[in-house]
């Protein structure tokens, strides 16, 4: 199913999304990756607030290239989400609901997604030039010293994504491959 989604990702909205849906996401999302997530989780462990309000927030695992003069942002495709698995349950426990990245997630992340009605979206890995076209504004919020891993607030319009894992834990990586292999077997 193809759908247009307006953020924030409330619990009600999240529950209507299913693995395999193609979605076009519009709204504010927050970028960071390895070192940024580590720092955010350390802040939470020390009882500090995050540099943004995580309630119903969607996180984009990306480390963009620097913007050229006149550009809002450089190339900005997803990075491998598995590296953020250590931090994802903590981020969801404080309200973050959407995650955008690519690649497998650990069972503990899927468990947290079921618990907090999380949704894991896939953006096309390697398609950084195309995805940058959907980014209409970019604002550095924190951790400037981390360079590409800094925390940014982006406004995206109709960002093309696929729901990889839904809030019930259904996984497109498993389903899609199974469906392809079954279709192939039936052709023989």
């Amino acid at each position, binding site marked *: 199913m193809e759908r247009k989604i307006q953020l924030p990702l409330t619990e009600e909205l999240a529950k209507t999304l299913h693995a395999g849906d193609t979605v076009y996401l519009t709204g504010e999302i927050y970028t960071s990756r390895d070192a940024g997530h580590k720092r955010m989780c350390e802040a939470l462990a020390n009882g500090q607030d995050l540099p943004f309000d995580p309630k119903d927030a969607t996180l984009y695992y990306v480390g963009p290239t*620097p913007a050229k003069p006149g550009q809002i942002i450089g190339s900005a495709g997803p990075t491998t989400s598995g590296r953020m698995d250590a931090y994802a349950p903590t981020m969801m426990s404080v309200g973050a609901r959407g995650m955008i990245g690519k690649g497998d997630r650990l069972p503990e992340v899927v468990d947290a997604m079921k618990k907090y009605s999380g949704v894991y979206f896939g953006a096309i890995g390697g398609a950084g*030039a195309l995805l940058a*076209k959907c980014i209409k504004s970019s604002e550095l919020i924190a951790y400037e010293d981390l360079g590409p891993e800094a925390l940014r607030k982006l406004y995206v319009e109709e960002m093309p994504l696929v729901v990889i894992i839904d809030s019930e834990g259904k996984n497109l990586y498993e389903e899609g491959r199974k469906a392809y292999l079954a279709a192939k077997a039936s052709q023989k």
Partner: protein
Amino acid sequence: MREISTDQIIDVVRRLCIEANQNLPSDIKACIKKCRESEDGEIAQDILDKIITNYEIAESENVPICQDTGMACVFMEIGQDVHITGQSLADAVNEGVRQGYAEGYLRKSVVKDPVRRGNTGDNTPAMLYTEIVDGDKIKITVGPKGFGSENMSAIRMFKPSAGIQGIKDFILETVENAGPNPCPPMVVGVGIGGTFDKAALLAKKALMRNVDIPNKDPYYAELESEMLEKINNLGIGPQGFGGKTTALAVMIETMPTHIAGMPCAININCHVTRHKTEVI
């Protein structure tokens, strides 16, 4: 003895870093288009279409194809009749990388220490490999290597008794483990032989070869196409969402090894398999 100054080398490395990151080689582009034609799944087709649009945008707007503009792997074949003048060669290559990554607005993805981290801020040092060859020229290849795929690579020291079957199983197992992580469709570089370190280097060098040129040895050319078919039968598909196109190519490079061993390294690359060469 022909003299080549490090100023020339800096200039070439600088340019190759930028061009390699913005323009996908034509053999890879043709291969992606061919795979798009043969895909029948809707999601798989849509993804390959978007991958094609992406590299077209990168090329026409001079922006990086992927935000992971990689570690700069620099391969140099240096003619033994060349005298390099100026500064040290490694310094010159790093200066070229520094300038290229700044000028091209490429991402600085290198940390100074593998454990304690800390970005170097200029994407240096480059991974430099030099080889002394005949002649009076220098052939420079820059292959930016992203780490989403690099992280899914593997090396194994086989006993000779494992034979070709051991290698085939290892290739399939590595691709299966990689799954959706390395941004499939991937290019699979395989290095067999040499020592532990040489096998890994061969696997990386395999990724610099054009995908439309099979191994010169018919035995390995056959193995390349057999493994490509087997990999594509896994059904992982573009981005791991299921489909025919899990890999664009399997590239095998080999060299002699010791009677006691059979090292095999597999270097996984994504569909953004970049490399650009210039001879000076």
